[in-house]
């Protein structure tokens, strides 16, 4: 810590890291180099493999292949504790401390300074104050942690990490629940630590903050290291470009014709000033019958939030939705389903699949809810529906009575797609339908979806993968900072300008 000069050798180096989970390749030849005295940002879209890489680094996962070099020596931490002892500490997004213990206790928990009989409370208090003062924090360390705002709690987590070890500090999305002033406080602390020679790995979604604090950036895409860049040499546009991937392939003529045709269809759904405080600023969009409307933007741009308002998963506090000429605001998903809207959530595990229920039960759930509890779908009909969809969508399952939890991610996603198709919706909202599933299933799902569109179903398609959105959409709305900020017809679609809007440059 005494040498604030930039060392020639990286303190931490990851090379050729591979990690596969059943059905998914999470990391393929991923890597990272971290030098002392730098803030290094790890960027990538959802599912790019950032958190898997962090988990490999901190001993949560064991990599299938690859090396981790710490100070030039190969290490293979088998647990977070071991990683900590080696000198790699992590501060997570959700602060994992004990809110009802004092600040000092939180810093030294599990490692209380001892004296002959019991704990040396005085030493602990003194040391805690010293540690925090290093971070320019002056607070009463005997007060319970919960009395302080989240930012301070995060500082406490950081001082705890520093006290344990001081080579590499990993901050996993530390700013997602902080306000602007708190972020500044955090950055001040990070700069100070950088001066002391600490290597800091910063994971975030926010471009703004990346440029405010980082020295270098590693971009990940599809589980691979896309590249390593000095922050000053990478424009925002180039960064987003690298995160989102290669330009789209040329569009087939048939798709262009469809896009031109559906524009003249009557609108199925229009929103007028649809908004929710702190979540979405007023949005006006129109979806035509048989149209596939793409919704692009980074995480937190408001795309999922818009979808949830359309579906009544959250209630809009301003504006209205008109479906087929009928104006309403949906207070519950049930009302939206009755109006012919279906919503495939981005969070398959928590908001989609009901894991210990069977494929059949999962598949008919929405249809049954739409019919009402008292009008039970006869078992024969349920089995028929399930068997048909399993065959039609090529769902790989031992039987329709197999619990959905035992299926692979892609097959679970297909069951959920079938759940919504069974309700015969007019509008299908797909939020990241291809996240976390293998390439083949991805392609299959996108094929079904575009085919359904040709047959008259309207689709609102949300995806972080710009090429995917560009390839499928008849029209596209781009969102940034919780508002819709650009609309593009197919044909007008120009990837660079879309990227500019997403990145917030020019446009």
């Amino acid at each position: 810590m005494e040498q604030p000069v930039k060392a020639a050798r990286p303190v931490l180096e990851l090379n050729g890291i591979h990690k596969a989970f059943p059905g998914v390749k999470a990391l393929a030849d991923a890597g990272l180099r971290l030098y002392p005295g730098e803030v290094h940002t790890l960027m990538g879209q959802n599912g790019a493999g950032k958190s898997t890489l962090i988990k490999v680094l901190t001993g949560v996962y064991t990599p299938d292949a690859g090396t981790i070099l710490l100070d030039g020596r190969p290490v293979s931490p088998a647990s977070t504790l071991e990683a900590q002892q080696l000198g790699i500490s992590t501060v997570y997004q959700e602060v994992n401390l004990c809110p009802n213990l004092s600040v000092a206790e939180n810093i030294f928990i599990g490692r209380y300074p001892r004296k002959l009989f019991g704990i040396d409370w005085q030493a602990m208090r003194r040391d805690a104050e010293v540690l925090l003062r290093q971070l320019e924090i002056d607070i009463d360390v005997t007060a319970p942690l919960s009395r302080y705002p989240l930012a301070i709690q995060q500082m406490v987590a950081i001082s705890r990490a520093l006290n344990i070890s001081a080579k590499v500090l990993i901050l996993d999305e530390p700013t997602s629940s902080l306000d602007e002033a708190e972020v500044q406080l955090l950055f001040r602390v990070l700069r100070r630590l950088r001066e002391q020679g600490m290597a800091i790995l910063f994971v975030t979604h926010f471009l703004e903050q990346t440029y405010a604090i980082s020295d270098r950036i590693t971009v990940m895409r599809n589980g691979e290291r896309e590249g390593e860049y000095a922050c000053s040499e990478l424009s925002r546009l180039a960064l987003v470009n690298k995160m989102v991937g290669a330009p789209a392939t040329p569009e087939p003529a048939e798709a262009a014709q469809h896009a031109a045709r559906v524009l003249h269809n009557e609108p199925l759904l229009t929103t007028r000033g649809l908004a929710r405080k702190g979540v979405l600023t007023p949005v006006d969009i129109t979806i035509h019958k048989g149209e596939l409307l793409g919704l692009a933007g980074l995480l937190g741009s408001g795309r999922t939030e818009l979808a949830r308002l359309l579906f009544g998963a959250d209630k809009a506090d301003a504006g209205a939705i008109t479906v087929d000429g009928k104006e309403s605001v949906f207070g519950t998903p049930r009302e939206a389903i009755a109006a012919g809207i279906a919503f495939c959530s981005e969070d398959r595990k928590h908001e989609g699949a009901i894991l210990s229920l069977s494929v059949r039960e999962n598949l008919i759930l929405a249809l049954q809810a739409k019919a009402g509890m008292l009008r039970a779908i006869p078992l024969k009909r349920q089995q028929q529906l399930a068997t048909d969809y399993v065959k039609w969508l090529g769902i790989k399952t031992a039987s329709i009575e197999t619990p959905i939890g035992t299926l692979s991610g892609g097959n679970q996603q297909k069951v959920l797609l079938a759940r919504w198709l069974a309700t015969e919706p007019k509008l299908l909202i797909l939020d990241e339908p291809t996240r976390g599933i293998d390439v083949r299933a991805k392609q299959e799902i996108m094929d079904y979806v575009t085919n359904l569109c040709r047959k008259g179903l309207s689709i609102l398609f949300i995806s972080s993968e710009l090429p995917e959105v560009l390839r499928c959409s008849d029209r596209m709305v781009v969102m940034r900072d919780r508002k819709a900020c650009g609309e593009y017809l197919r044909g007008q679609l120009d990837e660079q300008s879309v990227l500019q809007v997403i990145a917030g440059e020019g446009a």
Partner: protein
Amino acid sequence: MTLPQSRPLTPEPVAATPAPRPTAVALLRHELAKPLLALAALLVLDFIFVPGFFTLQVRDGHLYGPLIDIVNRAAPLMLAALGMTLVIATRGIDISVGAVVALSGTMAAMLIGGTMVIHNGVPEYVAKTPMALALAAALGAAVLCGAWNGLLVAGLKLQPIVATLILMVAGRGLAQLLTDGQIVTVYYQPFFFLGSGYLLGIPFALWVVAAVLLVVALLLKKTALGLFIQAVGINPVAARLAGVRTAALIFFVYVFCSACAGLAGLMIASNIKSADANNAGLLLELDAILAVTLGGTSLAGGKFSLAGSMIGALIIQTLTYTIYSLGVPPEVNMVVKSIVVFAVCLSQSAGFKKMWKGRA
């Protein structure tokens, strides 16, 4: 992948695969296998050590015998366990069952009261309030209790154990307040039929349990109630997004649970011909939870088994009976009960299975 042309959103029909036939191993793996085996083991124990355990006699046209006695005494617990099963399946819990038992019993006893008057040399029983009205009022109070619980859990999103803790204290408190802490005795003969009468040679209480069980079983079979309860219990967020009215459903199960408890309270009051606000239904909620657990329903919610809970209730009552008949001093009862329960729970524990396999 080609799409069928006829219907835009639905696939073409394919022949459904028939369900596989159960084998002996599958039967042993059946969810009811363990509770049934536990019950059978107890019965075998009784067969060996309790003379005349399986004798059934017909006296005055009524069926008598230890088995009938056990089932009859288990009736209130079976009712409570029925309601509790649905609550637990939604990932909830209701610890106010005993209090509701006390409250409904007290209300019925106080409203009916009753005296016997000799009218023209013929004894006649007179109730303070018409019995039907009194029973309806007592059950109504129980339903209100359930609505209160449901409101706290489904509406205010309180944790079920905390939400129902309020009524657990308040319900019994209210019952004690109403009775000044005294036992209210009932002298109105027709009321006793509920808890100790016979219909077609079988205790009337059993008919009541059978009727409620039948209604619930029909509801589960003929409506999507079972599917929705499981969906809510396993993943409430996903269930809501699929269009299930989760709040209404949760509200309903708490109302139903309290209604069952209310009915059990009437049964107990009728059986002991009085209402004891201090002791009626005391800790019944814990026995009900136990019965549900013994029956194989996980406290984590989701999959549930009504039949399992009924068997669970019977296990508890048989155990009590066995302990008494074996001449074990009553003060040992609780300890023995806890040991048996511990054994059954261990047999269901995944962690224990792992440890066991690791050793072997």
